[in-house]
């Protein structure tokens, strides 16, 4: 039971911290929408010549959600680096609890935060004019959760090796951007050499 309680306690702290930081909530929501507007406007013009078949926003929106999940999940694991820099990690490390539970709590915290963000974007979809069939929503949610969990796990692995938030930020850019661009979220991957 202590195992579950540890996971819950660590998770709860991540959520409280997220909730208190309103700037972070707003800016992480703003980023994907900004991408959508800028890329959407720019790329839809240039790609309009190709035979696309669908509306560009419609094509890009799922990718934007996935991208947002990835960056938020990854970024949320920065809390471990913060904890190290501000000494709180020691408080966790001297506690008589399982290290596995601590890692799970941290990963689930980032997963939850990223999923909330994704859900908000999903709810915004009809307002932006993206049509989503009701039947695919459960599937979407499952994939969002899986993606969030996977990226959070990777983020935690990296943040546990980093000593400063600066280096974490850099490594995050290096890892995240290639994944964005080769994911096919911004343009169809048919043009990529195989």
């Amino acid at each position, binding site marked *: 039971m*202590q195992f579950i*309680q*540890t996971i*819950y*306690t660590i998770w709860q*702290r991540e959520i*409280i*911290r997220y909730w*208190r*930081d309103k700037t972070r909530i707003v800016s992480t929501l703003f980023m994907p929408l900004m991408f959508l507007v800028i890329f959407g406007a720019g790329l839809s013009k240039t790609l309009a010549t190709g035979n696309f078949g669908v509306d560009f926003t419609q094509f890009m929106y799922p990718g934007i959600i996935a991208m947002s999940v990835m960056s938020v999940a990854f970024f949320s694991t920065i809390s471990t680096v913060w904890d190290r820099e*501000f*000494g*709180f990690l*020691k*408080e*966790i*490390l*001297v*506690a*008589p*609890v399982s290290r596995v539970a601590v890692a799970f709590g941290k990963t689930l915290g980032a997963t939850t935060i990223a999923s909330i963000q994704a859900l908000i974007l999903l709810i915004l979809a009809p307002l932006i004019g993206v049509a989503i069939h009701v039947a695919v929503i459960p599937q979407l949610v499952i994939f969002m959760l899986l993606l969030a969990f996977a990226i959070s796990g990777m983020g935690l692995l990296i943040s546990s090796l980093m*000593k400063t938030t600066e280096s974490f930020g850099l490594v995050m850019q290096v890892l995240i951007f290639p994944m964005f661009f080769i994911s096919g979220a911004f343009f169809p991957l048919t043009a990529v050499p195989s």
Partner: protein
Amino acid sequence: MNNIIEVKNLARQFNGLTAVDHISFEVKKGEIFGFLGPNGAGKSTTINMLSTLLIPTEGDAAINSFDVLTRRDDVRKSIGLVFQDPSLDDRLTAEENLRFHAKLYGVPKEEYKKRMEEVLRLVDLWDRKENIIKTFSGGMKRRLEIARGLIHYPQVLFLDEPTLGLDPQTRAHLWEYILRLKKERAMTIFMTTHYMNEAENCDRIAVIDHGKIVALDTPANLKKQVGGDIISMTSNQKAELKNELEKRYKKEVKEKDGFLQVEVEDGEKFLPRLFNELTAKIDSIELRKPTLDDVFLSLTGRAIREEEASDKEHMRQHMRMRRRT
């Protein structure tokens, strides 16, 4: 089971540099045990090893009769820690910080409420429990950390430089709490410090220098090693006074800045005797006890200097080294 901490031949090296050099000591239940030494002497390293944060290169240590290598979780449950650097989550409230800690240490829910109030009242932070830590002063943070270290009712409380960077008033307050803890809870307290006047509050002190314990005794005994108490007097009958002191008490009298100085073994007992028997008149008299500064000086040939900025530097270095291992 009289000793709550037992350390045998404990040593730790960092990349070939010896931080702690085969030290051995015991701490009895219910005593305040002080580790006194300059920065970089190995105090924090020792605490880190005793609190399972750092693996010793050599030697054994047991807390509450649990080995720090094989029974880590039992050791962790037995101890409360207040680190040298702050370790609170400053985005949480005081109460949330305590709750986080209590949950990790498995304090039952029903118990938690009672204990939370108890420890917060002990450190006078009860009315600030809903406040975010960011708004707290350095002294309040320290007090809260002590409260946090106590909420799981540890057997031993480790305080690593608990008063570092605090103003004298807060420092005095903090000491009140520490002494109250000892009195009311019979708690064992293991602390490190490089402030001499603080070390005087300890029951026993280990003087540590370059990773070695150079002396271990009560503050009073340590001071006795250095020499006796010094009595300085002025008088307008200086010659008679000097004569009398030399003849009757067989003391060596030194003259310094117009004062007559004698060294005696037990100043408090000597003074009344002196007043009763002396015929020469004294204008003023002063009794000075040797301080732990004198002790450290005589043991190592150096004075302890306070270098607060480099202290943190040092800690960071240790942290980095620890991570590499």
